[in-house]
């Protein structure tokens, strides 16, 4: 174990290996490690952003859903109101129609009654004449008493 010229040889090896590390080992590794660190940081940030966006989207969709529900209930309420209105209208119309029918019927009935009365009037005069003819066959002449019969006909 003596100090000798091996010293120089070893110093040269040492210098060579420092050079290799400094030139070919450390810079690319450092770059790769730094790049990876950046990539991971970016990835985490993107994930965070995505999460936030998702939260916003969820809120927005909930809002839209609620709005749609409100609109739907409004529509239903309006429809119900309108239906009621239509029913009321129909009821009114039906009543008017029914009244009309009743009035018509009444008028018809009256007409009918009038006609029946007319017929009856005509028949009563004939019957009365026929009866009187039968009763007064012998003593009363129809022609002699025509004015009486005419006033009787008018009196009915």
């Amino acid at each position: 174990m003596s100090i000798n010229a091996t010293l120089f040889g070893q110093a040269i090896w040492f210098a060579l290996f420092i050079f290799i590390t400094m030139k070919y080992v450390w810079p690319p590794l450092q770059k790769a490690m730094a790049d990876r660190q950046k990539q991971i940081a970016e990835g985490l940030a993107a994930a965070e952003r995505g999460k936030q966006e998702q939260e916003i989207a969820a809120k927005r969709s909930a809002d839209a859903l609620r709005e749609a529900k409100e609109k739907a209930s409004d529509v239903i309420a309006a429809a119900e109101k309108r239906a009621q209105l239509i029913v009321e209208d129909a009821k009114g119309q039906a009543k008017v129609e029914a009244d009309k029918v009743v009035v018509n019927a009444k008028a018809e009935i009256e007409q009918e009654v009038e006609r029946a009365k007319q017929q009856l009037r005509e028949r009563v005069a004939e019957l009365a004449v026929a009866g009187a003819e039968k009763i007064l066959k012998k003593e009363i002449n129809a022609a002699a008493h025509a004015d009486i019969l005419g006033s009787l006909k008018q009196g009915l």
Partner: protein
Amino acid sequence: MSAEGGLTTASYIQHHLTNLAICADAAKVDGHCTGFWTFHLDTLLVSGILGLLVFGLMAKTASKATAGVPSGVQNFIEMVVGLVDQQVRDTFHGKSALVTPLAITIFVWVFVMNAMDLIPVDFGPVVLATVTGDSHMPFKFVPTTDPNLTFAMSISVFCIMLWMNFKVKGFGGFMHEVFSAPFGPKLAPVNFLFRVVEDIAKPISLALRLFGNMYAGEMVFILIALLGLYQLPLALPWELFHILIITLQAFVFMMLTIVYMSMAAESH
């Protein structure tokens, strides 16, 4: 593998703790290399091959690194690199493109070299003897048990530290700090002396701490291996414990380097 084939305990230990040295023939004394101009071939080869393998793998993985889902290898390397980078961020507050790669290099390289200690002590020599046919060829498989390596690293770190001082504070600022801290300008020589001792202690303590820990650990492995059959219940616990030492020493070397760099980059 104790004391067989004419091996004594002393020569066994000697064999395991001797570096494979090469030098000019003129420098040899009794066939052994002495003097400064000797190269420990085993240290140079093992540390170099390990470094090329591991940094080659890292560079290859890094060149294909994606910011998407990482592959298993990329994930593991990123984990290690990220751990080192976190330490640098916590400790070093200046701006420098060098400190993190420096810390990564130290941690990874020292760790894999220390990890050679986990290969059983006789595995390497036996394989080597089989391959080369020379059973006496010394070869140390753990480069960090060679003080040349640890000193080379710590002195390099020291030089980078000085360079950082000049770069951040400028020549004037650095000199001002050297001569006026901690006792003020009036005691400039004392300050300078303190500073010299303080700074010289840094590379020495760095180098000797790593070398001492790994050398002692290796020595314990060798001693356990000498016990024959009894090594079996002992080698495993020490191996497990050693995993901790390996990691800790790599971490300590890296951490102290970062601390020295941060001291150099911060003005008092």
